[in-house]
């Protein structure tokens, strides 16, 4: 039993972009520097929807050799406990010893359920994950430390932080198998309602490649529109400091930091944010940090990749204009 499987997440239009970095990680192991290359065994993708030709060729282009369509009981597709039980049966049936999923809104409700039902170890939010050694790396103590965690057991689970690895293609051809889990029963948990709120259609913070975040320096709720407009051009998500949330300018779901979302975009643009320890706890895993602040002595200016002593309310609209008109 040495198969690896990835759980593919979907969005309204098909397979989420964030999956491909995870698939690459599952194929190659955790660290690009290891250089051991692709593992010989094929990679299984579990997907909770019928797979059409375009999905199939996308999955094939990233090295998926077996696609398992997991058929859920009709009407219970949003029940995370039912999905977890169905997926667990599917991975057991395919002799899967390591399971990769995304540490996203869905993954955080799904992967711990699966690992708990299986009695198996799980590391959430890992940015390195290697099935061959059972090693995962994640941050602990509010981003103050990095932990290397060794998992042992018959089956291990990785919750992979989006954007942890650059996707790399590796074309193969795949067979499609069906796993009928339509008889999975409800066990004490029923979904009464799902409210998407206004965040539903915007780019999610956890998965965004680019985040533009605003703090006290944005001065009011209205000025966050400036960030939203720029974010639309960049396909970015909009984040906020706790001050912006506590002032009532934006909802709590947008808060980045120790008591908010922990994010890992490729680029984090901080507008009018001073860079407190608690804010850093949520965004220090970002690839590149760009800071716009009127105070050259703000903490963030000494702990970023690019900074400008400037008014964010003037710079960001200029960025939007350039993206619009070139």
């Amino acid at each position, binding site marked *: 039993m040495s198969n690896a499987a990835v759980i593919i997440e979907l969005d309204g239009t098909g397979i989420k972009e964030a999956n491909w970095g995870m698939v690459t990680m599952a194929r190659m192991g955790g660290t690009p520097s290891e250089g051991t290359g692709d593992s010989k065994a094929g990679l299984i993708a579990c997907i909770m929807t019928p797979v059409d030709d375009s999905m199939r060729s996308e999955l094939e282009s990233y090295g998926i050799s077996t696609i398992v369509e997991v058929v859920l009981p009709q009407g219970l597709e949003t029940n*995370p*406990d039912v999905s977890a039980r169905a997926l667990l049966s599917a991975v057991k049936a395919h002799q899967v010893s390591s399971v990769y999923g995304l540490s*996203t809104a869905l993954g955080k*409700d799904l992967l*711990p*359920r699966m*690992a*708990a039902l299986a*009695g*198996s*170890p*799980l590391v*959430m939010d890992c940015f390195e994950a290697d099935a061959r050694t059972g*090693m995962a790396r994640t941050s*602990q*103590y*509010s981003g*103050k*430390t*990095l*932990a*290397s965690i060794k*998992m*042992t*057991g018959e089956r291990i689970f990785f919750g992979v932080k989006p954007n942890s690895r650059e996707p790399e293609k590796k074309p193969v051809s795949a067979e499609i198998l069906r796993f009928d889990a339509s008889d999975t029963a409800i066990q*004490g*948990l*029923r*979904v*009464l*309602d*799902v*409210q*998407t*709120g206004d965040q539903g259609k915007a780019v*999610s913070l*956890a998965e965004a*490649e*680019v985040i533009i975040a605003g703090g006290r320096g944005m001065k009011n709720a209205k000025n966050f529109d400036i960030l939203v407009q720029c974010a639309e051009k960049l396909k970015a998500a909009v984040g906020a400091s706790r001050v912006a949330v506590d002032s009532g300018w934006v*909802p*709590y*779901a947008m808060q980045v930091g*120790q*008591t908010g979302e922990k994010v890992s975009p*490729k*680029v984090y643009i901080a507008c009018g944010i001073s860079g407190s*320890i*608690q804010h850093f706890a949520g965004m*220090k895993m970002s*690839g590149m940090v*760009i800071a716009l602040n009127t105070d050259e002595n703000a903490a963030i200016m*000494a*702990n970023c990749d*690019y*900074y*400008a002593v*400037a008014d964010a309310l003037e*710079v960001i609209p*200029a*960025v939007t204009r350039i993206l619009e008109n070139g």
Partner: protein
Amino acid sequence: MQIYVCVKHVPDSAANIHVIDDIRIDPNLAFLLNPYDEHAVTEAVKIKEQHPEAEVIAVCLGPEDAENTVRSALAMGADRGILVQTDSIFDSIETARILHQTITDDGVPGMIWTGKESIDAEGMQTMFRIGALLDCPVATNVVQVALGDNKAVVDSERVGGVVYTYELDLPCVLGAGRGLNTPKYPTFPDVVKSKKKPVKTVSLDAGASSPDGASMKVVKLEPLIQTRTPKAMTGDPDTIAREIVTILLQEAKVIS
């Protein structure tokens, strides 16, 4: 109904963390009740106010000092506490097993609360493991709860603000999220009263953890040191904006 609240003794988030022996943190710092567990205790006490027959029991696995954390929960209104005393560090598989064993040895849980995560290990899974052991439903990041006839209706908020409303059979395990309530911080008389409340200390018997090979062990812990070297962008807003676009295009390659 017995309501158990699992509380964790964690380092103060404002404290500086020093790594020793490459594998653990220097424990000479301020520890307190995990912030998300404060929401859990507060909610359990609120439920007791509506259901006076209920009993709220704080359960903690931790070192001798963790009695302070149990006492904090008592000062916030829990009726009594249980400290499973140990100097060892357990992974969440073992922790859930020990907490489950302790709770079922003590009584008959109608509800078990935890925080949605602990701010030290940030594992986000102990509640699900307790639920699996008790064979009962689980919801995490709970921001609203209403008790019905042998049922709980809860709002569970996913990251990004999407809210799932679940109905769970009792007993159930719930992970408290920040939006659930505003923790009621104890007054001085609360603290005095809590000193008289019973805390049972049990020592860990080896039988509690039955190792079947499934484990996760921190093999290395390193301070996260920032290695960014800030470069200045200068000029008028338009010039800075052009430079940002160039960086996004050429260096970060996030736009094309």
